[in-house]
């Protein structure tokens, strides 16, 4: 037992966490005694310090800092790759430096929180199935939808993309691992900490945090202690995503295979490059906003206290300066996934490759100029509205470039309508609808009319569910054979798609209507006139919920007993498909050399990368050369 506590792992994590709680108890009571504050013991004070500190003890216990501490104490550190790679399922519950293991840890963890967040959506819909009170009181309802949004945004959509990219991106650019493998492990382990903290808020006196995922001050300053769980959990989730983004940027810039110029990178790499820029630049703003809230809450600062001269609108400005770019953080990696899936499954080069890359960067730049369109009714200065309306409309242009390029990619391709492709095409349709309602919302008069109604709920779910989640499903199905070495069940995949696609629309399309008619969001009750639509929406949403169980069943069964997939089931050109499935422990025996673009489908003999162990002569084919055997070019 004593030996187990000395080794990094769960026993030591538990021991350190208990130690952490005692430390915080001592710190709080000690300081209060030193400054003669009465009473000496204050539960809320201990709790808030613990929320900040105990996770660090936990991370230390599980072993995230061991290597660095050894380095910092001046000892010679040798990286023997002992923590690299997984030999059994138990290794997935340990600190691991292999990007492939971390990728799967990320994906499984975020899907775990996706199912919990989805369950809360079911509770919300159960409450809203009929007017009046069904199951929960209004305060609990506020808590449920707040935790639903927060979990799905901070613990699902943002990290699951980081997980997919973690697995695929180093392979795609021909790197043996990420640039900072131990930082990578730390960024993963901060995630479950944040997620568990958010869920634990239900046990807090006064209930979970209930101020929505935006947690506007001064509401979040005055709310019961559950709110502190949000404020601090977001810090850990944010630190995790900054660390990962930094890691991606350094990996992409310094570790590309020879010959992999920026314009030979697959678009998924471009997408994660752009996303990581957004994360590194924008995420500190939400950290700052939550720091200010916790200072106001715990230490009596006056940032958001109008009586002391504080400014509540400032919270919204700082918050949205992160959270608008955050919607692109939740979308751009999906754009990358769709480009990979569409090119491979329609056997055609991505149309307008360079414009696809540039439009990603344009979205990054423009994303920082539109934040105040969330605040048209907030009471801010009127003159800010018009510039924000214009920039918001402009941001539809690079997005439109991408949509048209995808459609042009499909044009006269040889479409293989399997599950990843269905989700990709479904995404294009759903995301276009969500994008159009987004441009509508950019218009000040319409926005004022539908502010805080179900129109907003419909819009955000069309872009985050019909948009992001569809790309996530497409990506998971697409790379499932690579990650597991096995093929998923195609029939169940198709069933999952059609159920999701149809009932997603039945759920969220009517919300546009009842939104325009004025049904307010974030309220547990509504007028009788909306009863019929709400019942339909609730029933449809339960079908969407059940369809995710098909997905879960498919993934588990196929992982265990699916047919062997082979290294390249999709006949893709990019590097990750040229190694075995699942890839060897260090990805490559020797780093491949890149000799051409990533999407030269339909060009006979075209090669993206060659491996050292057998060097075929790269076949130089002039762009647009006619090819005899490729159907998309013989017209």
């Amino acid at each position, binding site marked *: 037992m004593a030996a187990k506590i000395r080794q990094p792992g769960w026993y030591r994590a538990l021991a350190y966490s208990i130690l952490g709680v005692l430390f915080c108890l001592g710190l709080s009571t000690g300081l209060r005694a030193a400054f003669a504050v009465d009473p000496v013991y204050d539960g809320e004070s201990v709790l808030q310090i613990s929320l900040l500190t105990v996770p660090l003890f936990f991370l230390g216990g599980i072993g995230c800092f061991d290597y660095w501490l050894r380095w910092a104490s001046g000892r010679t550190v040798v990286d023997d790759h002992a923590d690299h790679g997984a030999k059994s399922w138990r290794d997935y519950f340990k600190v691991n430096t292999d990007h492939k293991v971390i990728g799967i840890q990320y994906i499984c963890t975020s899907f775990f929180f996706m199912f919990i967040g989805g369950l809360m959506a079911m509770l919300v819909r159960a409450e809203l199935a009929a007017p009046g009170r069904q199951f929960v009181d209004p305060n609990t309802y506020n808590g449920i939808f707040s935790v639903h949004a927060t979990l799905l945004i901070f613990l699902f959509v943002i990290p699951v993309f980081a997980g997919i990219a973690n697995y695929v991106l180093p392979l795609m650019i021909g790197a*043996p*691992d990420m640039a900072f493998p131990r930082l990578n492990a730390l960024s993963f382990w901060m995630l479950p900490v944040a997620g568990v903290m958010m869920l634990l808020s239900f046990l807090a006196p006064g209930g979970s945090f209930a101020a929505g995922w935006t947690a506007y001050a001064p509401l979040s300053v005055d709310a019961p202690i559950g709110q502190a769980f949000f404020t601090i959990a977001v810090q850990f989730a944010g630190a995790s995503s900054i660390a990962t983004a930094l890691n991606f*940027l350094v990996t992409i810039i*310094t570790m590309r295979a020879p010959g992999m110029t920026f314009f030979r990178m697959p678009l998924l790499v471009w997408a994660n490059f752009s996303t990581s820029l957004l994360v590194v630049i924008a995420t*500190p*703003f939400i950290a700052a906003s939550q720091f200010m809230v916790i*200072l106001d809450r715990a230490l009596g600062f006056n940032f958001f206290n109008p009586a002391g*001269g504080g400014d509540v609108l400032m919270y919204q400005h700082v918050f949205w300066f992160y959270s608008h770019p955050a919607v692109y953080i939740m979308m751009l990696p999906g754009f990358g996934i769709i480009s990979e899936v569409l090119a491979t499954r329609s056997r055609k080069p991505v149309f307008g490759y360079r414009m696809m890359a540039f439009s990603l960067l344009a979205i990054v730049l423009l994303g920082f100029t539109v934040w105040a369109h969330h605040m048209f009714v907030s009471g801010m200065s009127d003159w800010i509205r018009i510039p924000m309306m214009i920039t918001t409309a402009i941001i539809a242009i690079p997005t439109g470039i991408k949509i048209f390029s995808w459609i042009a990619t499909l044009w006269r391709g040889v479409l293989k309508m399997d599950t990843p492709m269905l989700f990709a095409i479904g995404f294009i349709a759903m995301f276009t609808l969500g994008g159009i309602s987004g441009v509508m919302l950019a218009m000040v008069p319409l926005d004022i009319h539908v502010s805080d109604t179900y129109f907003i709920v419909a819009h955000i779910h069309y872009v985050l569910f019909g948009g992001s989640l569809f790309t996530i499903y497409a990506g998971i199905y697409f790379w499932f054979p690579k990650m597991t070495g096995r093929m998923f069940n195609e029939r169940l995949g198709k069933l999952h798609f059609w159920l999701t696609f149809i009932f997603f629309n039945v759920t969220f399309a009517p919300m546009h209507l009842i939104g325009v008619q004025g049904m307010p969001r974030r309220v547990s009750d509504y007028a009788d006139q909306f009863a019929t639509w709400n019942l339909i929406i609730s029933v449809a949403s339960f079908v969407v919920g059940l369809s995710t169980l098909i997905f879960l069943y498919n993934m588990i069964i196929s992982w265990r007993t699916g047919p062997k997939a082979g290294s390249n089931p999709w006949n893709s050109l990019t590097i990750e498909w040229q190694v075995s499935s699942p890839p060897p422990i*260090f990805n490559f025996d020797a780093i491949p050399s890149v000799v051409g673009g990533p999407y030269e*489908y339909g060009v006979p003999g075209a090669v993206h990368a060659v491996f050292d162990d057998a060097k075929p002569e790269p076949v130089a084919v002039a762009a647009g050369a006619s090819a005899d055997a490729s159907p998309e070019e013989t017209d």
Partner: protein
Amino acid sequence: MEAASIPTPTTHDDHHHGPPIANQSSRVNSEVLGILLFIISEIMLFGAFFAAYFFIRVVSADGWPPGEGLPVAVAGINCAILLSSSVTMHWTDVSAKRDNQMAMRIGIVTTFLLGLTFLFIQINEYLHLGFTPKTSASASVFFGLTGLHGAHVLIGLLLLWMSAVRIFKGKVGPDHHRGLEVPGIYWHFVDAMWIVVFTTIYVL
């Protein structure tokens, strides 16, 4: 099929003793690039607090400065202390590249002590200001920004401590100076940020 022309490596030695050496596709060293990107993130964190400062000072026009004037002279001396620590930090860096172990030790200790002095004076200033964060929003912003910077000095000192330990164990030399260079870059950032904080909070 196009892909069929690519030989798929099927036999992989699982007892491979380490990863292949990654291709270095940029002249920038990855640790240096990492800390520079992290500094961008830090600048944005300060940016958010500066946004709070401008909102409270300009938009809601809360009285500035909080209390009866800020001790500009004390902060100015502090500024000089922190800036001179940047000079000694640079000297340490150069000495590492020249393998001058003695200069390196003197340099890192001087830098560390200068940083510690800065922090000590800052805390002393807090105690004699005559207002607390609870007094007003301007006071909150003052403590928020200078406190945020103080926290960064503390983190910088922690990093310098680690470098110092390695220097005194003789682990830093011309070929092994990343462990000094990277904390050094961070320390320069902390110093540069103080100039911005000092100018906006105390001078303007």
